[in-house]
C-alpha cells in the first residue's frame, strides 16, 4: 500500500529540485549590484546612520542597491547668530564605478539641552557631482545659525550627520 506514494515522491523530486535551483540562481543574479557588463560588486557602508532610500533609476533600467558606497565628511567652525558659512563636504566614492551624487542632506543634533538643533540649518545639495571610482569630490553647502540663537549656543558644537544618494552607470 505504501509503495505507490513512495514512487510518486521519487518521480516529482527532480522537478522540484530543478525549479528550486533556477529560482535560487535567478534571485542571486537579481540581487547582485552589477556594473554594465561587469561581474557582481559588493559594497559596505560606514557612518552612524542607516543608508537613505535609493534614488529612482532611469526609465528602463531598474535600480539596484549598492548601499554604503559613499562616505561623507565635513565640518564648519566660526558660527554665531545670523551668520551663514560655507560647509565643504568631502564625498568619497568607495565603489569601483564612477558615480554621480544627486542629493546630500544633513541632520543636525541638539548641541545641548539649552541649544537646540533648530538654531542651525544646513542647506541640502541637489545638483550633480561626479565622483570617480575610488575617488572623492568636494561639495559645498551652507550652514546658517539662527539670529535668535541664545547665549547657550556660545561655544556649542552641533553633531552633523550626512546622508547622500548617487547614481551610476
Amino acid at each position, binding site marked *: 500500500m505504501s509503495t505507490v506514494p513512495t514512487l510518486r515522491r521519487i518521480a516529482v523530486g527532480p*522537478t522540484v529540485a*530543478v525549479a528550486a*535551483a533556477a529560482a535560487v*540562481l*535567478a534571485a542571486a*543574479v537579481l540581487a*547582485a*549590484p*552589477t*556594473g*554594465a*557588463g*561587469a561581474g557582481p560588486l559588493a559594497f559596505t*557602508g560606514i*557612518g*552612524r*546612520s542607516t*543608508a537613505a532610500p*535609493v534614488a529612482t*533609476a532611469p526609465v*528602463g*533600467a*531598474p*535600480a*539596484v*542597491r*549598492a*548601499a*554604503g*558606497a*559613499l*562616505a561623507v*565628511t565635513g*565640518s564648519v*567652525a*566660526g558660527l*554665531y*547668530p*545670523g551668520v551663514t558659512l560655507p*560647509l565643504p563636504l568631502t564625498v568619497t566614492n568607495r*565603489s569601483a564605478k564612477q558615480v554621480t551624487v544627486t542629493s546630500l542632506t544633513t541632520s543636525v543634533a541638539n*548641541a545641548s539641552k539649552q541649544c537646540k538643533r533648530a538654531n542651525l540649518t544646513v542647506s541640502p545639495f541637489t545638483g550633480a557631482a561626479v565622483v570617480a571610482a575610488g575617488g572623492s569630490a568636494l561639495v559645498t553647502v551652507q550652514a546658517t545659525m539662527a*539670529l535668535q*540663537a*541664545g*547665549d547657550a*549656543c556660545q561655544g*556649542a*558644537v*552641533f*553633531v*552633523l*550627520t*550626512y*546622508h547622500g*544618494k*548617487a*547614481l*551610476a*552607470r
Partner: protein
Amino acid sequence: MTAGRAGRSRPTALLVVCVALVPAVLASSAVAGAAWSTSGSGGGSGAAEVVQTGAQPSGRASATEVIVSWAPATLSGGQAVTGYLVSRTDAATGATSAAGAGCAGVVTTNHCIETSVPAGDWIYTDRPVLQSWNGPVSPGSLPITVP
C-alpha cells in the same frame, strides 16, 4: 505505454522551462546592472564661537558728563561684536545700574558720553554683545569722580 510516457515527460518539460528561464533572468539582470544607485552617510560638526570678555574701560568726568571708552571686543574667531552694554556702579554702595542718557541701551561704538550723572565716584563696565549673544562683563574702570 502512453500513460507511462506522459508520466515521464512532465518533469522533463518543467526542466526545459526552467532552463529556458535562466537566459531571461540573466538578460533582466544585465538591464538592471546598466544603472544602479547607491547611498552613504558620514558625520561632522558645526562649532560656534564665544563672545570674548569686554576690555576694561577708562573715563573722565566733565561737570555732570562722563566720557567712557574701551578697546573693541571680538568673538573667539576675531569677528567684531555689534555693540556694548554699559553699566556703572556706585563705588560707595556697590549698587550697579545701567548707564543713562548718552550710554543707554546697546552702544554700537567703543565709547560714549553719559550725561546728567549724579555726583559721586563711579565705576564703569562694558559688556560686549552680538545679536542675541552677551559676553562677559569687563573689569571695572578706575573710579571716576563726578563733582
